């Protein structure tokens, strides 16, 4: 299992290969799982405690379901590694980060500098999401 190209956590990347969501029910002691865009992230909620890594796959960058999956998991309190894999491009990194991804495994490696700029795209943000940033409206009324 190759390491993710970008890893924004303090710990080390999960080295287990994630098992497919469909097989997860049978592998009751798995610590890493992969979900596809059509899988319901909410059905993982009872198992969050045992999971060290959830890999959310983006078969095509234009399919945005993975952003909702990620947020749902974080909103439910999941604190493990949340990995975006597949068709992950420079221009999606900042949105992904804001939805709770902290690990990125693009199928085609990205330019390191461009990625760094992308992660830092917005000084301030309009929405409150799961990335713990203070939204603009809160600063206005701070």
């Amino acid at each position, binding site marked *: 299992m190759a390491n993710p190209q970008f890893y924004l956590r303090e710990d080390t990347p999960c080295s287990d290969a994630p098992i497919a969501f469909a097989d997860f029910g049978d592998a009751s002691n798995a610590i890493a799982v992969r979900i596809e*865009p059509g899988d319901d992230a909410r059905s993982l909620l009872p198992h969050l405690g045992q999971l060290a890594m959830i890999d959310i796959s983006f078969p095509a*960058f*234009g*399919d*945005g*379901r993975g*952003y*909702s999956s990620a*947020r749902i998991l974080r*909103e439910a309190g999941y604190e493990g590694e949340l990995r975006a894999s597949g068709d992950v*491009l420079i*221009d*999606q990194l*900042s*949105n*992904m980060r*804001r*939805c709770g991804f902290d690990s990125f495994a693009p199928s085609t490696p990205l330019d390191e500098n461009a990625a760094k*700029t992308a992660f830092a*795209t*917005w*000084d*301030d*943000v*309009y*929405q*409150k*999401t799961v990335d713990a940033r203070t*939204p*603009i*409206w*809160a*600063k*206005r*009324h701070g």
Partner: protein
Amino acid sequence: MYQYDQYDQAMVDARVAEFRDQCERRLKGELSEDQFKPLRLMNGLYLQLHAYMLRVAIPYGTLSAKQMRMLGHIGRKYDRDYGHFTTRQNIQYNWIKLEDAPDILADLATVEMHAIQTSGNCIRNISSDQFAGAAADEIADPRPWAELLRQWSSFHPEFSYLPRKFKIAVIASEEDRAAMRLHDIGIQLVHNDAGELGAKFYVGGGMGRTPMIAPEIRDFVPADELIHYAEACLRVYNRYGRRDNKYKARIKILVHELGKDEYTRQVEEEFAHMKTLGLNPPVAELERISTYFADPDFDQNAPDDLDMSDPDFRIWVEQNTHAHKQSGYAIATISLKPTGGIPGDASSDQIDLMADLAEQYSFDELRVTHSQNIVLPHVKKADLYALWQKLDAAGLAPANLDLVSDMIACPGLDYCSLANARSIPLAQKISERFADVKRQQDLGELKLKISGCINACGHHHAGHIGILGVDKKGFENYQLSLGGSGAEDTSLAKITGPGFDEDGIVDAVETVTNLYLKTREDGERFIDTYRRIGMAPFKEALYG
């Protein structure tokens, strides 16, 4: 009018810098067209038949004179000296060079404007009632709510790759001037029994190839839950909207396939969850925004009477002005539909003139309407005559608002790569056929809308008379439909029968309007007569 603070300005500036970088990478070949496409689309840049087309956002259709002048400047410097106002209260430029696009966005940013999310599968520019803040019949100004939604939807990290584009409209009166129920989300501000202001939500309307009228899914969302509720509507759509077929990807199909009740149930469940997260800006933020939309300094003693001894002026006043909430004032609509003209087009000089007039007569404000006209919302009645004379001298005083020649027409085959047929020349022919204003006034309110293909950018489904361009064995052909409405009595038009060629369709329009004139009863508009007598007599007259 809303004014950016340092945060809003920084967002737009950052976007300009980001897009400049993306354009450079594209021009250097580091980005493929496939990778660049969604990025340019999120900045309003389309690739059309002959050139790039740039769509600039005009949030809820409101502009200051300075912003309007910038639109004229862009037409002059980067395009062919004109712009095209669209049915989504935006403006489009048809002849843009890719290498100029970042400079245009930078110019726009200097007047608090942008092209953010004017295309792509994201939440688009929020539209509203063009008479907001001026209409005698509104219960509140809808624009602060629209601005709150604009900020929330800008660069929304979860909703930037939706199954399909997403359009929201906000209104605050019973009369619907924004085709609210033909949007993905239509919001009407209402009072609850306790007298509090809140939002009624309609979800799942739209045009395109499968037109649908949005059903109401919640009668009241309180002001401090607006964003939670919108977020819930969008999350259900983002997760379950169809992605297998582009033509079935709009939220209307999801709501239709799940059924309104099941969609609503899922939204309510998600809404309950959102509320636990505290994502909604405090009411103080809505209040902060609202202060920018406070009434201008109206002259409380402005006289209410009007000298209408000039007959041409009288016609214009009767047709193109509306009641204002402040006595002594009127709302004046500038028609961009001269006989033989291109609906919605304005030259850079005309744009500048309208900006000057707004400064002089309308507290520095203009509005763009979804029927592709411009509004001066706050004109003193005492100034109307002077205003009209200046408009008339510039060819901006057609007295045809809501009449047959006040058509909506999409760009069609003259510009659009998806078109089956031309819309503009047809609009020109129809307006020439009905050039006589007296005749038009006699026909009364008649909304004629033309689309060059099934995508329905020209709202033909919502036309009292709708015209759709189709391709018939390599020839342009036009289908006629009757009975649509985008107003509070929303309805979808029905096709009359076999289509017509270009001259035939102009005759057909005349045939149905003649039948109306013969059969109408007292006070009936075209649409009323159609609703009373039904399709059969019209069919008979057309094909009998």
